[in-house]
């Protein structure tokens, strides 16, 4: 039992300070709770990195020469892996953020200790930070091997990291939207993965034949700037390839800096805000 003066101390801890403290506490708890998941994702990132190193060393052993530009060497690590790594980590973090309370009745929804908006903000920030940490770890590994090979790290690698962090925000927000109305974490994760890995690429392929419009509404298109930034601003942003007489296909390589920045920000905001509204009005089963 606490005494009266201590009870008054509790009362003093309300207002904006308490709100920020609650967001911090829920975020900290979320990070501890997801420690195993983070560890697994770090291992996955390390395994991908090691496999690439082995592959490259094998190629160098076969007589393939080391690129003269360290940026090209770094790009090799990112080309095949970074969008998938972001997709896997962002969906696995984002999938459970909201639905877990309804699926497992964690006691946070009925008679909660914290309002839904603070719960939402705390969890979102924690999951974004963990996700960013996994991707940062992957970039550090790349920077490490680049430094060993060239005794220097190209600045463009850190620009690429910035775009990767923005892309995480986009995919995480998209998955959180599914988490806000799906019945299970697995459902939210699988649906988000399916749409990003299958549905969007199919739509983009169809559009490349029938339209020259830049696919700014296709989320995976924004991932291309993570590697596309290595060739910008000089590189082409799209290519037109004739496949038969009278029929060309337009392949969009990467969005512009402005389009990527505005597109990811707007989409992320819309997804997060929609997810919050659904979460706020969702009733417990």
């Amino acid at each position, binding site marked *: 039992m*606490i005494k009266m003066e201590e009870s008054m101390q509790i009362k003093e801890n309300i207002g904006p300070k308490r709100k920020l403290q*609650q967001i911090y*506490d829920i975020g900290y708890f979320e990070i501890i709770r997801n420690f195993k998941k983070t560890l697994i994702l770090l291992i996955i990132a390390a395994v991908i990195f090691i496999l690439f190193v082995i592959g490259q060393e094998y190629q160098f052993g076969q007589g393939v020469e080391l690129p003269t530009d360290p940026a090209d060497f770094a790009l090799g690590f990112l080309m095949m892996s970074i969008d998938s790594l972001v997709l896997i980590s962002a969906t696995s973090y984002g999938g459970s953020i909201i639905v877990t309370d309804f699926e497992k009745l964690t*006691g946070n929804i009925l*008679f*909660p200790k914290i309002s839904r908006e603070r719960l939402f903000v705390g969890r979102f920030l924690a999951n974004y930070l963990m996700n960013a940490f996994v991707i940062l770890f992957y970039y550090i590994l790349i920077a490490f091997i680049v430094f060993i090979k060239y005794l220097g790290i190209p600045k463009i690698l850190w620009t690429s990291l910035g775009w990767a962090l923005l892309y995480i925000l986009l995919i995480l927000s998209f998955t959180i939207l599914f988490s806000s109305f799906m019945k299970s974490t697995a459902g939210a994760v699988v649906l988000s993965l399916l749409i990003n890995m299958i549905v969007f690429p199919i739509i983009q392929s169809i559009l490349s034949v029938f339209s020259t419009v830049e696919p700014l509404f296709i989320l995976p298109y924004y991932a291309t700037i993570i590697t596309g930034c290595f060739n910008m601003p000089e590189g082409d942003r799209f290519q037109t390839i004739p496949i038969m007489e009278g029929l060309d296909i337009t392949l969009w390589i990467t969005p512009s800096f402005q389009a990527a920045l505005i597109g990811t920000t707007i989409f992320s905001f819309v997804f997060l805000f929609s997810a919050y509204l659904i979460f706020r009005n969702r009733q417990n089963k």
Partner: protein
Amino acid sequence: MGPKAEVIIELKNLTKKFKIVTAVNNLNLEIYKGEILGFLGPNGAGKTTTMKLIASLLHPTEGEIFVRENGKLQKLTSHNKDYLLDNIGFLIENPEFYKDRTPRQLLTLFAKLKGYPRDKIEDRVEEIIHMVGLSQWIDQKLGTFSKGMRQKIGILSALVHDPVILVLDEPQTGLDPKARREIRDLLLQLKNQGKTIFLSSHLLYEIAEIADRVAIISHGILVACDTLENLEAQAKSSQIQVELLNINDIKNTGIKIDKLIRSFLTDPIRYNKDSKVFELPFDGDPEKQYEILQILVENKMKIIDFTVSKADLLESLYLQHISQSDKTYKEFQKKAIKVEKII
């Protein structure tokens, strides 16, 4: 509770409508400091909705909620809810927690969220865990806990920030008798510590054993709220259970008792084969209860038990109020349908 008892929560004309359904209808209720108020009603009566309204999880369609703070009853609004609700600990019906977390981790989080002084959280968590006899489980994962243990942790999660009032929604539902008794003892312990407890339950026995007053709600309307004794007096209906030593002839014994005390009874005597007791329905007047006992003893009836069971009494009062309410509600619905047809 006496007339001078301090009101700690007041619900005034509280109404909650969900589209065409009125879940809570013009509810007026006062909860007094230090009491256990049992909140009874069938499924869908509006118990949980009322509790959600107090917790500010739902907004009332009409009416107001007042919570005592700094000696004054203050209206609960969206601006002061954090401040006022710090006085209250809430528990959901069937608490589930993250299975891979421990009670220490979970209760520490809840205490932090509720702004409990950080340097005292560790001691507080250990103290309350000890109070329910789960000290050796404090660092075990919640996934390994039985339902009764989880329910205790649920109550502790409502209690961890040391609130003045506890609002508990069916804390004993689905528990075995041993766990129910443990929860009951815990609630009495909390009452002795000065906590005010607003408790909903289907388990009439549990309420009868610990509640100072009972409130009965049906179809969203409060149909009764008083002490058991007062409700009994109002209903003019009660029942004495008499157990006799060595009854050879139940029928003749029953006839004999009936002849002796017929003038005191409101209904014929019954014999309960399961509990092996005679049930004597009377109007609940304690004077008459005493006279019945005196007559039976004077006539050398070998009485080994003579009680008015609180649980049975509550059950009979509950059913009486609920059936009356059902009847009124059906009549109201019929009238409403007629009006609708005319329109």
